[in-house]
């Protein structure tokens, strides 16, 4: 195969620099001792990593995200496995419609889903419940899990199952001894992808969660997407009462409007408009 020329190498170098730049900056920032990102810097410190450990809300948020991810990925797989069996092993009227429905969360913008959940949970009085948030996550990650199980099933040979049945195995035995072992890679892969999707889901969670905060007054996890990383420290500086944020001099994090709930609550609301909690009652 022909080798890459100078242009290709230069292009590739720039591309990799582009891909890594923001990640490097976040990591770098997490290691600087001062409140500002100063250039050039000579000193490094783990100060902000200790700050994470001192602020229990970050630790709580982290475990909450893990719990939510594990539960929603497991539930999504429990729903996806039988559905995938139906879609992969049977041809039946309405099959295409089922596929379209099950994959539709992929093409619906998450803002729309977030808004819909917010309205739905308000109407049925499940605002701010963990069950509601869990259900919302399961729905969003379901298509990812389904696709991986489907892929595992469609690449395996149905003749093996027929052979098992012809040898007198019951439906349950076929599932347990033949189908399930064949599905395991797909199920495991689907679970991991689902977990990552749940862990990373911000947009929809912001909507479902914003009410959670107001209704329950719970001061639980902020920035589900950020909290697991040292980069979240950029925000820690802003939120921490002991560390004055020099928003006007440093990186303009302070000006970011809604990286999470803090931004939302901090926003000066219209004084004559009801807060969400009150509005909910009037709806």
């Amino acid at each position, binding site marked *: 195969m022909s080798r890459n020329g100078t242009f290709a190498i230069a292009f590739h170098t720039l591309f990799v620099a582009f*891909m890594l730049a923001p990640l490097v900056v976040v990591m770098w*920032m997490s290691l600087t001792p001062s409140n500002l990102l100063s250039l050039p810097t000579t000193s490094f410190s783990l100060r902000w990593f200790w700050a994470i450990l001192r602020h229990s809300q970050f630790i709580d948020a982290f475990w909450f995200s893990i719990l939510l991810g594990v539960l929603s990925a497991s539930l999504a797989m429990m729903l996806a496995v039988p559905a995938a069996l139906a879609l992969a092993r049977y041809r039946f009227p309405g099959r295409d419609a089922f596929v379209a429905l099950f994959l539709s969360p992929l093409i619906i*913008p998450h*803002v729309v889903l977030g*808004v819909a959940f917010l309205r739905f949970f308000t109407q049925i009085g499940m605002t701010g419940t963990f069950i509601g948030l869990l259900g919302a996550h399961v729905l969003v990650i379901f298509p990812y899990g389904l696709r991986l199980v489907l892929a595992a099933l469609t690449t395996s040979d149905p003749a093996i199952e027929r052979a098992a049945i012809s040898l007198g195995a019951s439906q349950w035995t076929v599932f347990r001894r033949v189908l399930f072992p064949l599905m395991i890679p797909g199920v495991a892969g689907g679970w991991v992808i689902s977990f990552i999707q749940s862990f990373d889901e911000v947009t929809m969670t912001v909507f479902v969660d914003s009410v959670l905060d107001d209704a329950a007054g719970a001061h639980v996890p902020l920035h589900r997407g950020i909290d697991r990383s040292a980069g979240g420290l950029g925000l820690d500086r802003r939120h921490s009462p002991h560390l004055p944020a020099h928003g006007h001099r440093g990186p303009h994090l302070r000006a970011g409007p*809604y990286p999470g709930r803090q931004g939302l609550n901090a926003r000066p609301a219209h004084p004559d408009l009801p807060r969400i909690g009150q509005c909910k009652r009037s709806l």
Partner: protein
Amino acid sequence: MASPKRRAPYLLSLPALLFFAALLVTPLAMIAGLSFQAFDLNTGQIGGLTLGNYADTLGDPYYHTIFLRTVGIGLATTAICILIGAPEAYFLSRMRAPWRSIFLIVTLSPLLISVVVRTLGWALLFGRNGVINQVLAALGLASGPIPMLYTVQGVVIALVHVAVPFMVISVWAALQRLDPKVIRAASSLGASELTIFRRIVLPQIVPGILSGSLIVFALAASAFATPAIIGGRQLKVVATATYDEFLGTLNWPLGAAIAIVLLIVNAAIMLTYNRIVERRYARFAQ
């Protein structure tokens, strides 16, 4: 004997169907219903049927700007992703053994890191005293700070970073089906590198580019976190405008109408595009 067999697929998909009926169909139907209700700005009361929210959304120049900006950002992001993602996938495919997998992982690794963290990185790079402006000032290349945060360009750059891995994956998948013998034949017949790319590689990866574009456009047009952080309060897109109606001004019916329009526009663009691509490139898919 036939009856249980016929019922089996429905029984198997029943749990998922019930779940989707409860948590997808019902909320979407509710939001659609809400979008037709009137909202009193003074009392915050909701009631009465109206088309006013759609009239506001579709007739108000303020929302026109937001919708056009969203589509523009989506198109610009898609175009840049094609321009840098497709060549990068091609160069990656021509690398030798260890490098190829290493750089493929480097390209895809941002997918495993939260969008918020990556956007935060861009915010740090873009600020008035951010890394880019400091470097430019130190090199004497810029007389003053170049505004990047809170600009459309900034949002597009950050969105390209979020979306370009999907373009690389799509083109990469198309390149895997390419027969290296054809390239060797062309090269033995005296074709230059550029000719080979233009006449042999490009036509075969077009389906990959098109399906990648679909993903990139959908991601960019419905992105929320990136425009919210990089674009700020002034530079609204549809997603952040919906958020503001719901959680800022609390005009839920109007927010619902904007969300429904976004949903319809997004679905229409994706389905039309998909249909065109399928029709034109059916012969490529064997």
